């Protein structure tokens, strides 16, 4: 079955949906999009359900060739446009849907404005789910395309081989992404393993994202935290956003591919409304933390859901993106056919 052929992968893109959080009791990490908000908006732009898998791009995107009759895309999470290659290269803006036809190549270059972006495709991918999710977890080689990052020559089968022409959808300017407020944290489950001075430092001083950052977690540079009662606990459960502090006192914020259990004390947990913001951070970015109570976290999460709903409700409609190159080719072909007849 045809779909999308990977001409060049960029930097290890993977297929991600909203993950498989229900399989954690089997030892499988939740996985899923680092920025689920961007994924949901990308899916909405192409008319997909929110939880459909898209290509997660980090730092440098792929070059893809359309082998289906046609396909509709939306890139969300970055202002970087989709480059449509051809005789006359063109750009299709991010944050709006675009329909492209067989043989066209699209390239997503470096994304400099976010740690992560999503390329959604109308109808999604025709690949087998693992525990009801297409999310790729490369360490166990499950989900996505053969359980691994996309590589040159992969042909990703699409469920829709041809998509109807229609007016395209356009999101606002992506301003939901820009937010410099502190990352909010609920203390626990093991905040009592840290000195009071360390807890104070954690919330009053700044951190930056180190180079040791991947889908599993990000190690932070900043004040070294001191344990008050040793740095080993009997392994217990881990929630996404947990701030784990091993013996060296350097905190690690655990992200989508985190192990389901672990034996280091966890100072606190980033609230679910701020997890997407963590996913957008890049090495070198700075951040601060603020302590909140659970009730505040629940209000923040409902606010986030309201904002996502508003962004989607306010999608504008825009004319189909004019593929001049394709039109030109079509005219040439029909001209030749016409002469023969």
């Amino acid at each position, binding site marked *: 079955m045809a779909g999308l052929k990977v001409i060049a992968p960029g930097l290890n893109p993977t297929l991600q949906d909203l993950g498989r959080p229900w*399989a954690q*009791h089997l030892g499988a990490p939740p996985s899923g999009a680092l920025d689920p908000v961007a994924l949901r908006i990308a899916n909405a732009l192409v008319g997909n359900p929110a939880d459909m898998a898209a290509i997660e791009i980090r730092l440098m995107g792929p070059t893809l060739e359309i082998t289906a009759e046609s396909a509709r895309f939306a890139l969300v999470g970055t202002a970087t446009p989709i480059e449509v290659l051809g005789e006359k290269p063109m750009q299709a803006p991010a944050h709006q849907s675009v329909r492209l036809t067989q043989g066209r190549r699209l390239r997503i270059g470096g994304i400099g404005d976010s740690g992560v972006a999503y390329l959604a495709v109308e109808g999604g991918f025709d690949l087998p789910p693992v525990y009801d999710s297409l999310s790729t977890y490369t360490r166990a080689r499950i989900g996505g395309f053969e359980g691994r990052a996309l590589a040159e020559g992969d042909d990703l089968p699409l469920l829709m081989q041809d998509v109807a022409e229609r007016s395209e959808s356009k999101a606002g300017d992506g301003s939901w992404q820009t937010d410099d407020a502190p990352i909010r944290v609920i203390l626990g489950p093991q905040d009592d393993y840290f000195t009071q001075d360390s807890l104070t430092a954690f919330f009053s001083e700044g951190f930056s994202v180190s180079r040791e950052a991947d889908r599993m977690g990000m190690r932070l540079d900043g004040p070294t935290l001191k344990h008050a009662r040793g740095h080993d606990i009997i392994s217990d459960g881990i929630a996404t956003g947990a701030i784990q502090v091993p013996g060296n006192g350097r905190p690690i914020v655990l992200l989508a591919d985190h192990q389901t*259990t672990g034996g280091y004390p966890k100072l606190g947990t980033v609230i679910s409304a701020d997890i997407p913001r963590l996913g957008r951070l890049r090495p070198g970015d700075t951040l601060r933390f603020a302590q909140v109570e659970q009730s505040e976290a629940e209000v923040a999460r409902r606010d986030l859901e309201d904002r996502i709903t508003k962004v989607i409700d306010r999608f504008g409609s825009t004319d189909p993106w004019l593929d001049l190159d394709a039109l030109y080719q079509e005219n040439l072909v029909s001209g030749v056919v016409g002469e023969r007849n």
Partner: protein
Amino acid sequence: MQAASNSRDKSGNSDAPRFLAAGDTALVVQFGEDVDREINRKVIALAAALREREIAGIVDLVPTFRSLMIHYDPLVVGGADLRDLVSASLDGLAASEVKGRLWRVPVLYGGEAGPDLSEVAERCGLTEEKVVELHGSVTYEVYMMGFLPGLGYLGILPKELELPRRSDPRVRVPARSVAIAINQTNVYPMESPGGWHLLGRTPVELFDRGLDDPILLAAGDRIEFSSIDQDGSDALRRRIDAGEYHLSPEEAE
């Protein structure tokens, strides 16, 4: 932190279960501070009780040695309400008497399959044969799943075999290695780094890619190991590679 009431247990253990916050999408119910069979059975019993109640908003229940992590959707159930709902299940909770499934796992001990067997024997002051016999003498329980998809922490290992983890962890432990450390044993379901002592290797897959649900074990299951020779292991492996054999649990007793 709020302590649950009415949950003091009959064995005189004064540790009432405690609720610990783990953000706005997870709640920890902690039963004690030890790796202990009774504590772990209560954890698994609470998971079973909550699963049966099908509480709206609970996404997953992850038992660990001495606590249960409840993952939930805060848009469906709030943290305060969830604590109340869970407290109701803590009242009168008894350690699990539910017997999990029993898996019989053949192991090719020693040689290339178990490169640490001789060292373990030496450090424990035992013969290799005795190590194998002791390792296979116990019906282990899966205390918890973790570290890798499909990896179960099994206890309790006979005291004679207790050793700390290796001071020099391996970067690559082969898939299906059977290993021990401290008072536990495990089977590495896939290749990974690891610091446990490798006694042998099983031909069977505990992460079986030929199945729709590839992970076989769950917390509360039981495992018995038995020794198999090279020919037996090779023969079973050929059937597995041909897709003709998948490990299945023993029939209920």
